[in-house]
């Protein structure tokens, strides 16, 4: 599981209303949600980003509501993965359940600047800032149970596979 893309930086406590405002929740269509991703923080966000880009955030990313529309909007906007210092717990489980790769890194946020390119290696557990001569930064290993969810393609496929056996 490797991702290489440009970094978009956000601070601490990015809440789910910031990721996708509640006024947009009259639909669960991923494309429709993607258009409004992060719009109350940065109205140009979805125009600026490229497919495969990476969000790097501070503490408690995704705090607030349980809306799965938040990881759906991020994924549908073309973001490959999110690396944060920490995640709010409902966002954390939603991301694994629906298949948005997320990683925790204590150091990346302070070392990387917006616009730099990074490579996140979920298998080896490291992040490399392209063009910087710093050694790879550590990302927290994904617990085996969550790895299983990602491997099976999310919680529902995981359950369907289990029910079949």
């Amino acid at each position, binding site marked *: 599981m490797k991702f290489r893309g440009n970094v978009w930086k956000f601070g601490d*406590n990015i*809440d789910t*209303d*910031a990721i996708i*405002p*509640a*006024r947009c*929740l*009259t*639909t*669960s269509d991923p494309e429709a949600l993607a258009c409004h991703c992060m719009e*109350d*923080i940065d109205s140009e966000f979805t125009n600026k980003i490229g497919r495969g880009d990476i969000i790097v955030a501070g*503490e*408690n990313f995704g*705090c*607030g*509501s*349980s*809306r*799965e*529309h938040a990881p*759906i909007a991020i994924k549908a906007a073309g973001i490959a993965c999110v690396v944060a210092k*920490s995640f*709010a*717990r*409902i966002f954390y*489980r*939603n991301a694994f*359940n*629906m298949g948005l790769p997320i990683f925790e890194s204590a150091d990346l946020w302070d070392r990387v600047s917006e616009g730099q390119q990074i490579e996140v290696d979920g298998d080896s557990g490291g992040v490399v800032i392209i063009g910087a001569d710093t050694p790879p930064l550590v990302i927290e290993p994904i*617990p085996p*149970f969550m790895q299983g969810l990602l491997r099976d393609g*999310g*919680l*529902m*496929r995981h*359950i*369907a596979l289990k029910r079949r056996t």
Partner: protein
Amino acid sequence: MGMTITEKILRDHTDLKEIHPGMLINAKVDVALGNDITAPIAIEEFRKAGGDRVFDTSRVILVPDHFTPNKDIDSAMQCKVLRDFAREQDLKHCFEVGTVGIEHALLPEQGLVLPGDLVIGADSHTCTYGALGAFATGVGSTDLAAAMLTGEAWFKVPETMKVVLHGSLKRWVSGKDLILYIIGRIGVDGARYKAMEFTGEVVARLGMADRLTMANMVIEAGAKNGIFVPDEITKTYVQGRATRNWQLYDSDPDAVYGSTLEIDVSGIEPQIAFPHLPSNTRGVSEAGDIRIDQVVIGSCTNGRIEDLRIAAGILKGRKAAPYVRLIVIPATPQVYRMALREGLIEIFLDAGAAVSTPTCGPCLGGHMGVLAKGERAVSTTNRNFVGRMGHKESEVYLASPAVAAASAVLARIAGPDALEAS
């Protein structure tokens, strides 16, 4: 080794003899809840996984409360998804406009969530039911889909933060002020992934409405669940409502806590959470001169009859100030009816309030009180994030019903003491 109430409830919903914080477990759920925003995705996922019948037609509960009565065609389509699914699956509890209330006020009131239960809800404020001595936590739509299919959910057993409240409460200080104060102390991630267990002599005297308000907002500190060990107040509340058997749990004297927070509440005054985080709190006397455009009294946090009584007590014989829009939303039809019988609705109307049928509406900027650019609201709701109640340049100040009512009259953020002195 001793166990906390949270650990015991989780253990008894598995086949395991012992569990400890950090363990990943699969547990049986007593109730799985969804609303008009989250259930449509869950229903789609349920079908995509080949779901045919839900695990139990009386334990999957659908409450279309967010954008209802439907505010537009898209929200009407979402509610239709719930309605069609409820009919197809013969769900025993799918509430329709007229009987629907705000989910976290409605389910305890109707005796559908009970002490000792393990409840998941695709709504972050599902943690409210911890007030009854249940383990209740918010999850996403896919978790709800899985639970509808299997009757189970996965959890990491949380460590518990013990919150001990000593002292005595000043006049006008409520459960809302206590939880805002605690969030202000520990921050919006101060209890991330943890259980918050409230105890101490102050808690023993708190009524169920205040406990529900406190448990409701533990998510605003990042907690997985909030919980109160059941007592006589719990039993009195549950008796006569319960739709099935329930079980009372407590924490062992030698239970192991990850941390303990001791607070003397005696000096706490009514609290305001300033924009744009629930942790941005200060006492109402330190608010300064902040002019407001709207007041909302209601929501899963503070839309119960006790809340409306407090607000009406302050508004009686008074009027909301000119150009202040006062919106009162009883959280359930039963609360509405009680308020009507007790004469509260008339007091609100005399004060110039708009009284609405139950809905989450303005809390999330959905409808029934959306803010324009630059406007400010005092609200008894639970979140004040950027754009939460409308325009991204609007502001929400979180407070208790008493402070909200007083602020409506004075057109600025103020507590009842300031109103009486004016």
